[in-house]
């Protein structure tokens, strides 16, 4: 599984499973062989290889990146349901590998390479949450000053402050000495460096992947693939 999202309003968690092309919703406390409470799957869904997702528990939607488009489903969708809307088209500049939703600012944040760009480094694209069709992003963060290179892991946002926090794998490969976790803002645009970088470059990370937050304890939690570990950082400045 390459993504997971916990919905604290409804106490459920969601995972995409690419091989059977489905989105599974489990009870928050599910354990062992417990079946999902719902799953989205079928010809109307348009799901091809869902490996990532984001859940907006406020507006009750699930966002699934599918390369050059983003599919949006109802959070409580069951079975063979069509997307509520699809964001896609050449103007979107989507080559989406992961995404996150800020329900407070009503924004959709997507990361991936930028089709048509001269550089192969990753970018952060910011859309309105309800954008659909061939819509241009409101903002694109990336470029040499941004330092963004390989972002493919799942990431998260902190809506109260509008922070985007994600792991950069640096040069790629099996491990990178210049990997780090960086923080941008939903108000950023263009070639902007991060506001903070933690755990690197030349720090503890070798291949950061997923990021999540524990606001109550002011912690940033990161999975690292090469360390095969989950690391928790106390970083009150972020909160």
């Amino acid at each position, binding site marked *: *599984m*390459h993504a*997971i*999202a916990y919905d604290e309003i409804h106490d459920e968690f969601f*995972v995409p499973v690419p*091989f*059977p*092309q*489905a989105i599974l919703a489990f009870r*928050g406390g599910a354990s062992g062989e417990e079946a999902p409470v719902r799953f989205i799957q*079928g*010809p109307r*869904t*348009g*799901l*091809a*290889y869902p490996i990532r997702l984001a859940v907006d528990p406020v507006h009750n939607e699930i966002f699934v990146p599918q390369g050059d488009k983003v599919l949006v489903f109802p959070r409580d969708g069951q079975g063979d349901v069509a997307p509520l809307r699809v964001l896609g088209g050449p103007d979107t500049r989507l080559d989406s590998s992961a995404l996150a939703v800020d329900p407070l600012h009503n924004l959709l944040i997507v990361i991936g390479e930028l089709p048509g760009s001269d550089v192969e480094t990753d970018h952060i694209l910011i859309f309105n949450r309800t954008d659909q069709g061939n819509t241009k992003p409101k*903002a694109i963060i990336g470029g040499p000053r941004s330092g963004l290179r390989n972002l493919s*892991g*799942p990431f998260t946002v902190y809506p109260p402050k509008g922070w985007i926090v994600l792991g950069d794998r640096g040069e790629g490969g*099996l*491990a990178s000495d210049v990997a*780090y976790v*960086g923080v941008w803002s939903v*108000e*950023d*645009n263009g070639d*902007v*460096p*991060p*506001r*903070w*970088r*933690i*755990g*690197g*470059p*030349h720090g503890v990370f070798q291949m950061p*992947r*997923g*990021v*999540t*937050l*524990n*606001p*109550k304890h002011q*912690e940033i939690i*990161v*999975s*690292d*693939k*090469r*360390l*095969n*570990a*989950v*690391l*928790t*950082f106390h*970083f009150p400045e972020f909160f």
Partner: protein
Amino acid sequence: MAIHSKSATREHRKRSQLLAPLGVLICAAAAVLFSGSAGEDPLALSPGAAAGPARLVSVTPLPLEPALDAPLCEWMPASASGSLVASWRQERRAAMAAAERTTADFPDLQPVRMIRDPYAAYSAVAVDPVRDEVVLTDENLFQILVYDRMDSTPPTARMTEPKRMLGGLQTKIEFQCGLYIDPASGDIYAVNNDTVDTLVIFDRNARGNVPPTRELYTPHGTFGIAVDEEAREMFLTEQHDNAVVVFRKSAVKDESPIRLLQGNRTRLQDPHGIAIDTKNRLMFISNYGNSHRKKPGGSVYLPERSGEKENWPVREHEPGSGTFSPPSITVYPLDASGNTPPLRVIEGPRTQMNWPAHLAIDVERQELYVANDMGHSILTFSTSASGNAAPIRVLQGPKTLIKNPTGVFLDTENDELWVASFGNHTATVFPRGASGDVEPLRVIRSGPLDEPALGIGNPHPVAYDSKREEILVPN
């Protein structure tokens, strides 16, 4: 006599009101800076002396442009819409912020907690009967570990040290889950699963952080390996594309497969383990049951390093074709290729299969062993089984120490059955044909008996359950 307009007078007064306090501030700062006895450096510190109260040490004049010259209120044309102005303001704020932004770096920030299993987690096992060694892959710390076949960890010991170990970035070992030992040379073939997309082969004497003796670039997501020594062919299952690829046994680097078994009629559904019966010319594949249809003639997934390939699996899915099917074992002719349906399928609730991983075959007795991961068991089927067939034997129970077994190997030289349990840092050995809840003949442990195995393997995403204060880590 000059005439000053009322507006000019107002403007002058406004500016004076702003500049006056600034002047006072500068004078006060200068007084502080230059106060003290003549000849004393007010900023000097005696070694070991306290720094004293806070002092102003420099003044930077405020810019006169644009802040003080600009009107205090922004001019807004009456015709401008609110959203347009808001957008302009946001852009201006962002541009100013971008120009001024510097990053606050905390590269040395250490985690307050780290969840990590410090011990090896065995995922696959194979025996070299010529040299009396057992080889295990460690999918937690990314190692290949070699022990004496007769090693057994005493109950009171923390672990058994391997006699030889391979690991490190140069080895290109990562999440390796399949294993084959060349009976003639003792060379170790290790299959990488989620990453690397490379089969790595090591000379049996290799140790430490060394490059592989040979590499073969494989499709993404290979799991099981079997070798037909007579035909000099190597078979690999490939999960993501529901395929079996066959290479020359000595294939290297960018070489294409010589055969491909893939297609919507094959019933390959997230294939994992593979066992071949060269005597009866059959191939057995274990499937988890996750299914989708491939787009005929669809695109393939090739890493940038590769050129054109023949017999490479199609990656492109038919959108919305996914289904959940029961786990199964599918049986094919050994030289099956293309969109060939299976000769037989073993599938159904009586089989007890639950994430069937690696397979091992007893050609002499015509029995098939299945490492049944989530069933915590080793299932034995007749090789002629079909349909909803029950296993003829089940090795399972607390005495067996089998927990999340992913690896199984039949050592026909010594009549022993090996099991690699990913769930508890153990490899266990049983007599060939063992059944029920029996103690193993020997146990090799990589960690203490009471230490839990965390089961972390490629922790890609992570989520926080705020209600239970728990971290969710899918693998």
